[in-house]
C-alpha cells in the first residue's frame, strides 16, 4: 500500500456490495422442478412444523395477496384463504444454496461472505472498473440474478453495515459513494436498518426513535446508558451505528470454496467378487494417494461409497489417527471394513472421498527397504487396532484434575496431545493397577486404630502385616451430593507380601449412613 492510501481511513477505501434475496426460499423451491412454475398464480406457502402446528416460513406473491404472511400459523392463513397450497420448507438446503450462491457471487469480487439467512456480502474494492463503473456493476448483478430467476436487491457502500441497510431499505441499486456523507444519506432509513434484534427495535420504537437520523438527536450518552449492558452488536444500536459509519471495524467471515479430494471408478462390468473389489479399491487408493500428494495433504477421514446395480449404496467410513496418504495402509484398513459388504447383483461404481484432509508435507520415500522390514509407524498401528477392535479400544491414560483416584485418570485417543495438568505430588503413593470398580471386602477383625487386621476378598482371607495410612480424601463438595462420604486410604501388605490399596468409606458417626464399609480399590506392584 502506498503512502497516499495509508493516510486514508480504511473504511473510505473499501467498497462492499450487499445483495439481499428477499424471496430466496420461495425462489429456490420454485426452481427445484419445472412443474412447480404452475403454482405461480396459486397462493402457496412453505411451512415448517412447530410445537403449535405448522407455521409459514415463506409466501409467494399470490399467497401474500391472499393475506398469508411469513411467521403466521398455517391454520390462521387457511381461515383467510382456504385453497392455500403448502410445501415443506428446507432451511438446511436454503443455507447450502446460499453458500453456493456466495461462491458464485465471487464473479464480482475477490471474496464474499454469507449474510445468513438470505443475503450476501461481496468485497468489490477496486473491482468496479472491470465492469465499467459501479452503476454497471450493479446492473450486471441485477441482470445475473434476473436470469437465474432469483429476486435480488443490491447496494454498494463503504461498509458492510451501510450496504446492508441500503439493500434492505433503500431503492434497489443504490450506491453510496466513498466521498458522500453517509450520515445524511442513511439518516432517513428506519432503525431496523441497523441489523438489530427485534426486541431492540421494539425498545427504540417505544422510545420514539424511528429513523437512523433520530438516534443522534437524543444524544449518544443517553443511548449509551440505556444499552450499557448489551455487548453483542445485534443488541446495541450504538455499536451497529458505528459499524455502519465505519468507525469500528466489522470482521466478516469469507466463504472459501474448498473441494474435497474425490476419486471414483465406474465399472464396465458389475463386480460381485471380493478379489476384484480389492483390486478396484487398491486402484482407488492409489488415485487418492496421488490426488492428496498433488495437494500436499493427507487424509484423516475417508468415505468409500459402493453403488450397487439395484440402486443400493453402501458407505464405509474410516478415520485415521494421523494424516496419511499411503495407499497400502488405506487399502489394508478398508479391507477390514469390506468383509460384510453384500454385493447383490454386482457393484457398478466405487467412489472414495477424503472428507477430512490435513496438510501433510511431502517426504522422501523409503529408498532402502520396504516398510515391512522397517516395521510400521505408531499412527498406522493405532489405525489398524482401531479398525479391528473398534472405537475406544485404543486409549491412553491422562491425568484429570480430581482428588478421587478413579476420577483422576481419564482415557483419551492415543495420539491426541495431553491436556495440561498439575503435577503429581511425590508423597502420594499410588497403586500400579486400579480395579474398574472398588470391591467390597469383609473385615473379619479390625485393630482399635481403625484399619483391618484380617479381611476377606474374593473368597480368601488376608492377614495384614504392615500398613501405611490413612490418607484421607474428602468428597468433592463442589460436585458430589452432600451425603457423599470421605475415604480413608491405607496401603497394606499381607502375610505373603501382597500389597493392596484399600479404603474405608466414611467414618463412624459422620451422620451420613451406618457403619462404614471397606473397599479394595488398587493392587500395588
Amino acid at each position: 500500500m502506498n503512502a497516499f492510501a495509508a493516510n486514508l481511513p480504511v473504511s473510505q477505501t473499501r467498497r462492499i456490495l450487499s445483495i439481499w434475496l428477499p424471496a430466496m426460499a420461495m425462489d429456490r423451491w420454485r426452481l427445484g422442478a419445472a412443474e412447480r412454475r404452475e403454482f405461480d398464480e396459486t397462493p402457496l406457502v412453505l411451512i415448517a412444523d412447530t410445537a403449535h402446528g405448522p407455521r409459514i416460513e415463506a409466501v409467494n406473491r399470490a399467497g401474500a395477496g391472499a393475506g398469508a404472511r411469513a411467521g403466521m400459523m398455517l391454520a390462521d392463513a387457511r381461515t383467510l384463504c382456504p385453497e392455500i397450497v403448502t410445501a415443506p420448507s428446507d432451511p438446511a438446503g436454503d443455507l447450502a444454496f446460499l453458500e453456493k450462491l456466495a461462491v458464485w457471487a465471487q464473479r464480482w469480487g475477490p471474496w464474499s461472505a454469507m449474510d445468513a439467512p438470505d443475503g450476501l456480502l461481496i468485497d468489490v474494492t477496486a473491482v468496479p472498473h472491470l465492469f465499467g463503473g459501479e452503476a454497471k456493476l450493479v446492473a450486471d448483478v441485477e441482470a445475473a440474478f434476473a436470469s437465474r430467476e432469483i429476486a435480488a436487491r443490491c447496494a454498494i457502500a463503504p461498509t458492510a453495515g451501510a450496504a446492508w441497510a441500503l439493500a434492505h431499505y433503500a431503492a434497489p441499486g443504490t450506491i453510496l459513494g466513498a466521498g458522500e456523507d453517509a450520515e445524511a444519506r442513511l439518516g432517513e432509513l428506519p432503525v431496523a436498518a441497523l441489523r438489530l434484534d427485534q426486541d431492540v427495535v421494539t425498545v427504540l420504537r417505544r422510545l420514539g426513535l424511528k429513523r437512523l437520523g433520530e438516534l443522534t438527536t437524543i444524544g449518544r450518552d443517553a443511548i449509551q446508558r440505556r444499552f450499557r449492558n448489551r455487548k453483542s452488536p445485534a443488541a446495541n444500536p450504538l455499536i451497529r451505528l458505528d459499524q455502519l459509519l465505519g468507525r469500528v471495524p466489522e470482521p466478516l467471515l469469507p466463504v472459501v470454496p474448498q473441494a474435497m479430494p474425490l476419486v471414483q471408478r465406474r465399472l464396465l462390468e458389475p463386480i460381485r467378487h471380493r478379489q476384484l473389489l480389492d483390486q478396484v479399491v487398491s486402484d482407488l487408493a492409489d488415485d487418492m494417494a496421488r490426488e492428496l500428494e498433488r495437494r500436499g495433504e493427507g487424509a484423516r477421514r475417508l468415505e468409500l461409497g459402493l453403488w450397487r446395480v439395484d440402486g443400493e449404496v453402501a458407505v464405509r467410513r474410516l478415520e485415521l489417527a494421523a494424516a496419511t496418504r499411503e495407499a497400502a495402509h488405506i487399502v489394508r484398513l478398508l479391507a477390514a471394513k469390506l468383509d460384510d459388504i453384500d454385493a447383490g447383483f454386482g457393484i457398478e461404481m466405487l467412489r472414495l472421498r477424503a472428507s477430512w484432509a490435513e496438510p501433510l508435507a511431502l517426504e522422501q520415500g523409503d529408498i532402502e527397504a520396504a516398510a515391512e522390514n522397517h516395521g510400521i509407524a505408531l499412527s498406522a498401528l493405532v489405525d489398524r487396532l482401531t479398525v479391528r477392535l473398534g472405537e475406544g479400544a485404543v486409549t491412553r491414560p491422562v491425568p484429570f484434575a480430581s482428588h478421587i483416584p478413579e476420577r483422576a485418570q481419564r482415557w483419551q485417543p492415543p495420539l491426541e496431545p495431553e491436556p495440561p495438568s498439575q503435577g503429581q505430588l511425590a508423597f502420594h503413593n499410588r497403586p500400579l493397577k486400579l480395579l474398574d470398580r472398588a470391591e467390597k471386602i469383609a473385615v473379619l477383625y479390625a485393630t482399635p486404630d481403625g484399619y483391618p487386621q484380617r479381611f476377606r476378598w474374593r473368597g480368601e482371607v488376608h492377614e495384614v502385616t504392615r500398613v501405611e495410612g490413612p490418607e484421607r480424601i474428602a468428597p468433592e463438595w463442589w460436585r458430589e451430593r452432600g451425603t457423599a462420604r470421605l475415604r480413608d486410604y491405607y496401603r497394606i501388605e499381607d502375610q505373603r507380601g501382597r500389597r493392596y490399596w484399600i479404603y474405608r468409606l466414611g467414618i463412624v458417626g459422620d451422620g451420613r449412613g451406618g457403619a462404614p464399609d471397606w473397599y479394595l480399590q488398587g493392587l500395588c506392584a
Partner: protein
Amino acid sequence: MTQPDLSSLPTTAFEDVATLAARRSARWRPGLAIQQGKALHSEIFASSREAAGAGAALALALDDWRCTPRGEGEEAEDRRSVLWVQTRDAARLGGRPYRAGLPKDLQARLIHVLAEKAEDALFALEEGLRCRELAFVIGEVSGNPKALDFTASRRLTLTAQKHGVPLFLLRVDAGRDLSSARMRWEVASAPSDTPEWNAQAPGDPAWKAELFRARSHAPGEWVLKGSDGILSASKASRQADRAVANWTAGLQHRRTPRRA
C-alpha cells in the same frame, strides 16, 4: 626355573574352569541385556489376586530397556511409547494400569488396548511387535485360551525377533502350557524390605520370581526388588545353585564330543 608342563596337569582342571565360566554366564542376572541383548519374548505367570506379575514385568522390561546400549544413529533418549494390551477378562480381574502408579518414565508414554477376546489381544500384540515406535509390548491374557496355543506363541516369538521389540506376556491365573517363549517366569509377591523411615509401612516392591524355563539360561529362583526403577536380584535358596549345576553339567556333556 622349570616351566610347568601343561600336559601333565589333570584335564579336569580345565574343564572345571570352563564349567565355572559357563555356569557364570549361563546364570540370569539383572542387567544382562548389555551383553546378550534384550529378552525378546518372556512369559510371566502370576495370580490375578496381586499386581506382582505386572510389576515384575515392568521392572524386567525397564531393566532390559535401560541396560541396552543405544545403537548407532538412534536418539540419545528413547521416547518411544509402550503398548499394554489387556483382554477384558484380565482387566476385570486384575484392574487396569493406573497412570499415577506407573514408573515415572512410562506415565506419559503408555498406550492401552482393551481387547474383547484373546484372539483380538493376540492380533494387537502382533501388530504392536511390528511397530518400530514402541519400546516394548506388555500383554495380559487371563487363563489358557484356545487361541493362545504353541503356534500363536511361536508367531509372537518370530515377530518379536524380526522387529526387535520385546514382548512380556502376562499369563494371569494360567497353567504352564506349551509355549515358545524364550524366558518363562512364575512370579508372586514377596514380603518387602522395611522402609528407612517407617518400619510399619510396606516398602519397595519385592517379588519371588522363578525362572522355570529359559533358552539360554539355567533355571533358578530369585527375589527381585525394584527400588527407584533399579532391579536387583538376590538368591532365594540353595536349591537354585544345584539346578544351575545340573544344567551346566548337561551343557558340558553336550559340548565334549564336538571338540573331540
